[in-house]
């Protein structure tokens, strides 16, 4: 009995030892027990859903990818600025107009900064905006259909980088030029840049119901580089802030020549004041040429309209509308905290982080405390506006996001880390490495008045050894951190597609509930739709032949077509009659010079086929739609150009 008691006590002591050992591990860094604990935090069981949507820019892929958090799983790639043969976007007759510009059809884009629409400073999940950097454009995506609905080209702009950020109620989506250019464009010596080039900051109004975009005005600023921007919010709603670099106005070897000034500027724009000026007839209409492309969900067709003028505003003609805040060393990110008080200038060549105060800025403006002016625009004193400095937090600060709990998180490209610091006291409270050389970071709702913190993810520029090697070219890496505690906790490492510059993320609720399952056939207003087998037909119009084709599990109607001739231009108008969730049909025909079509239930898409050889050619469904998918095929007979084979079509019987 005594023995039993002793051994029990011994057992108890050992157990106690294990427990305290575990406790010790929790504050440690890399134990096995902790690792499994972390695995649980990102584990989304089969059939369960992630708690957040994340929309990542694809960078040079030109598109947007949709991810789930915390699992880091990719759900979809949404084509925006680049042709996408998977669905036929940019190849089908309906979507080719989406990629039209004043430079003609452009098959590719460089997508940068997605931003979700807001109401009253909170994410409302209606639309996603994203900018194209190379041939300046702004796109609007529906977060109901997850399709690109509208693309507007931005004239007088070049390197559309300080874009596409929305104001607190999505009054505007803003697009600033990175490269200044002659406005209007003209033939002139490059060396005459200084004083002659200008930078356009475009305020694109967003219609509250439809989301339709229209350039309300462009502010023509001095010829600096406008790098990034963010809206004021809360108390600073009505203002917009842009970082600048190359205030030296160098036109060659910028890595040296644009890094000479000790300070560049953050441009503070009172857009409400300029809006009022414009509403009272201010500004001038300037001849321009830019494309406005709109996709109609009911005709399933995009139209491209060339707009011929744009309203421009000279900032010095609107007193009190524009100021420059000196900010050290070529600032990159320009980030505004959820309260709207603090404007963080991430001086990428500076060792310190500069934080400006909106209240102090207003005060300095009111007391006319100016240090001078640049091209007639008042420059405020650095010290007058300064809220505080985060001393030596890391090397190469790029971007800052906020958790809504008084903390800011800044990425450091050179020292490859995320640093957490406190607003107001400016003290660094935590730092975690990233793998490697982080660019942007995202906190769900991080660019709004109400961050939905818990997660933060860092999007890196360098991958190296993070995954199984795939040759010289690799996808970029991202890391997900839990930011709900005092210290950041690295949870997950996941590859991303293209080069994500920025991402917008939000809690899944609103978007999940509104995500559309099918397009209603009854609402299909496509002029070439065949809404039942009775509507199918083949119509010759000179050299053009229009085939009204339907798909339903598991056949095309018609599936035997004759009377096509070499030299014809054959339009396959494919309507998917299905009204069942997730039953697309595909369409491919031999020798198609564009791409397949992937047609969603209730949708119509058109592929043009120009047969060059006589023969009987098959077409088939590319999507494994049903058990009889392999039977979903047809033949089209192509006769010689001078033949007199009549146009005929059939389904289920022979053509006589």
């Amino acid at each position, binding site marked *: 009995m005594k023995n039993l008691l002793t051994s029990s006590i011994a057992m108890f002591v050992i157990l106690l030892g294990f427990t305290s050992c575990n406790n010790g591990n929790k504050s440690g860094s890399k134990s096995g027990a902790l690792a499994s604990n972390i695995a649980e935090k990102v584990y989304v069981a089969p059939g369960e859903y992630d708690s957040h949507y994340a929309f990542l820019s694809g960078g040079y892929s030109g598109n947007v990818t949709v991810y789930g958090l915390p699992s880091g799983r990719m759900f979809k790639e949404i084509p925006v600025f680049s042709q996408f043969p998977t669905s036929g976007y940019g190849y089908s007759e309906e979507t080719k107009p989406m990629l039209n510009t004043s430079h003609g059809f452009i098959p590719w884009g460089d997508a940068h900064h997605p931003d979700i629409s807001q109401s009253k400073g909170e994410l409302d999940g209606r639309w996603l905006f994203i900018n194209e950097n190379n041939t300046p454009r702004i796109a609007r995506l529906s977060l109901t259909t997850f399709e690109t609905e509208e693309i507007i080209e931005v004239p007088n702009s070049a390197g559309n980088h300080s874009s596409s950020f929305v104001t607190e109620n999505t009054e505007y989506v803003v697009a600033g030029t990175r490269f200044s250019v002659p406005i209007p464009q003209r033939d002139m010596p490059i060396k005459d840049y200084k004083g002659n080039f200008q930078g356009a900051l475009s305020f694109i109004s967003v219609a509250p119901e439809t989301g339709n975009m229209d350039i309300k005005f462009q502010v023509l600023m001095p010829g600096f580089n406008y790098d990034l921007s963010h809206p004021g919010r809360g108390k600073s709603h009505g203002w917009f802030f842009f970082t600048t670099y190359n205030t030296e106005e160098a036109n060659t070897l910028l890595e040296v020549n644009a890094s000479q000034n000790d300070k560049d500027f953050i441009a503070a724009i009172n857009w409400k004041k300029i809006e009022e000026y414009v509403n009272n007839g201010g500004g001038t209409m300037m001849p321009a040429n830019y494309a406005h492309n709109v996709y109609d969900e009911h005709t399933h067709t995009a139209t491209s309209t060339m707009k011929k003028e744009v309203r421009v505003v000279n900032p010095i003609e609107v007193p009190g509308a524009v100021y420059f805040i000196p900010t050290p060393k070529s600032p990159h990110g320009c980030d505004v905290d959820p309260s709207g008080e603090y404007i963080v200038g991430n001086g990428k060549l500076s060792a310190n982080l500069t934080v400006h105060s909106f209240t102090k800025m207003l005060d300095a403006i009111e007391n006319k405390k100016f240090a001078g002016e640049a091209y007639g625009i008042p420059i405020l004193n650095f010290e007058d506006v300064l809220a505080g400095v985060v001393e030596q937090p890391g090397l190469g600060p790029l971007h800052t996001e906020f958790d809504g709990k008084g903390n800011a998180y800044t990425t450091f490209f050179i020292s490859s880390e995320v640093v957490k610091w406190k607003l107001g006291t400016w003290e660094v409270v935590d730092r975690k490495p990233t793998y490697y050389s982080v660019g942007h970071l995202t906190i769900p709702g991080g660019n709004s008045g109400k961050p939905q913190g818990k997660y933060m993810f860092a999007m890196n520029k360098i991958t190296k050894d993070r995954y199984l090697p795939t040759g010289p070219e690799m996808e970029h890496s991202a890391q997900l951190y839990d930011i709900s505690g005092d210290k950041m906790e690295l949870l997950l490492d996941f590859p991303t597609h293209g080069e994500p510059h920025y991402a917008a993320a939000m809690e899944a609720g609103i978007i999940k509930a509104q995500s559309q399952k*099918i397009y209603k056939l009854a609402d299909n207003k496509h002029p070439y739709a065949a809404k039942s087998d009775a509507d199918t037909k083949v119509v010759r119009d000179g050299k053009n032949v229009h085939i009204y084709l339907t798909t*339903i*599990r598991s056949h095309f109607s018609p599936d035997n077509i004759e009377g096509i001739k070499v030299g014809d231009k054959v339009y396959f108008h494919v309507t998917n009659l*299905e*009204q069942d969730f997730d039953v697309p049909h595909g369409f491919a025909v031999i020798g198609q010079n564009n791409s397949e079509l992937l047609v969603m239930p209730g949708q119509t898409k058109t592929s043009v086929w120009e047969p060059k050889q006589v023969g009987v050619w098959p077409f088939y469904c590319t999507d494994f739609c049903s*058990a*009889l998918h392999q039977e979903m095929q047809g033949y089209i007979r192509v006769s010689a150009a001078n033949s007199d084979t009549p146009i005929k079509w059939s389904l289920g019987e022979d053509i006589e």
Partner: protein
Amino acid sequence: MKKASIIMIIGSLLLLGLFKFPLWNIMLGAPQYPDPLGMNIYIDGIKGVSEFDLQNIDGLNHYIGMKTIPKADEMWEFSMFPKVIFGMAMLGVIIGLLGYFEKVSYKYFLGWFLFMSVLGILGMYDFNNWLVDYGGNLDPHAIIKVTNADGTPMSYKPPLIGFKKLLNFDVTSLPHTGGYLMFIGMSLTLVAFWLGRKTSLNKKT
């Protein structure tokens, strides 16, 4: 007797719920249909539980050669049932009123119940006949032909009531709100009969 008559009237009126709510419901779930397809059977026709369910059930059933789900005007039942239900509800109300004013005896309540039960059984018999035909009268050119072990064609008849596995589909067939209201209403008429009988026996002693 007044109380019994009121219960009789309420019980009969509950039948009218069938004009608003489905009598019966059949749900079809499958691995690729995590949100099951479903049909609600009303006394005047069949509707999908979700907007395109009927079309999608028909689309799937064409593989195994089943006929499409009948439209309201393709079955005489859908014009006859509303008349019968309305008639029986009115008859029950009239019997209840007459009972209330002591013009008829409580035995009429039982009479109504028995009559309604006979009609109900006939209705179920007819419904089952349709299910047998719907599930078994298959197109000989069906794309997929499944046979029983003895070589006879498999029937896809959904269960009259309860659960059944049909190929990849889990089929559940149960009464719906209208049906339950009818059962409650009929039970109430039995209660009315029992109460009426009790009060009448009390009076006699």
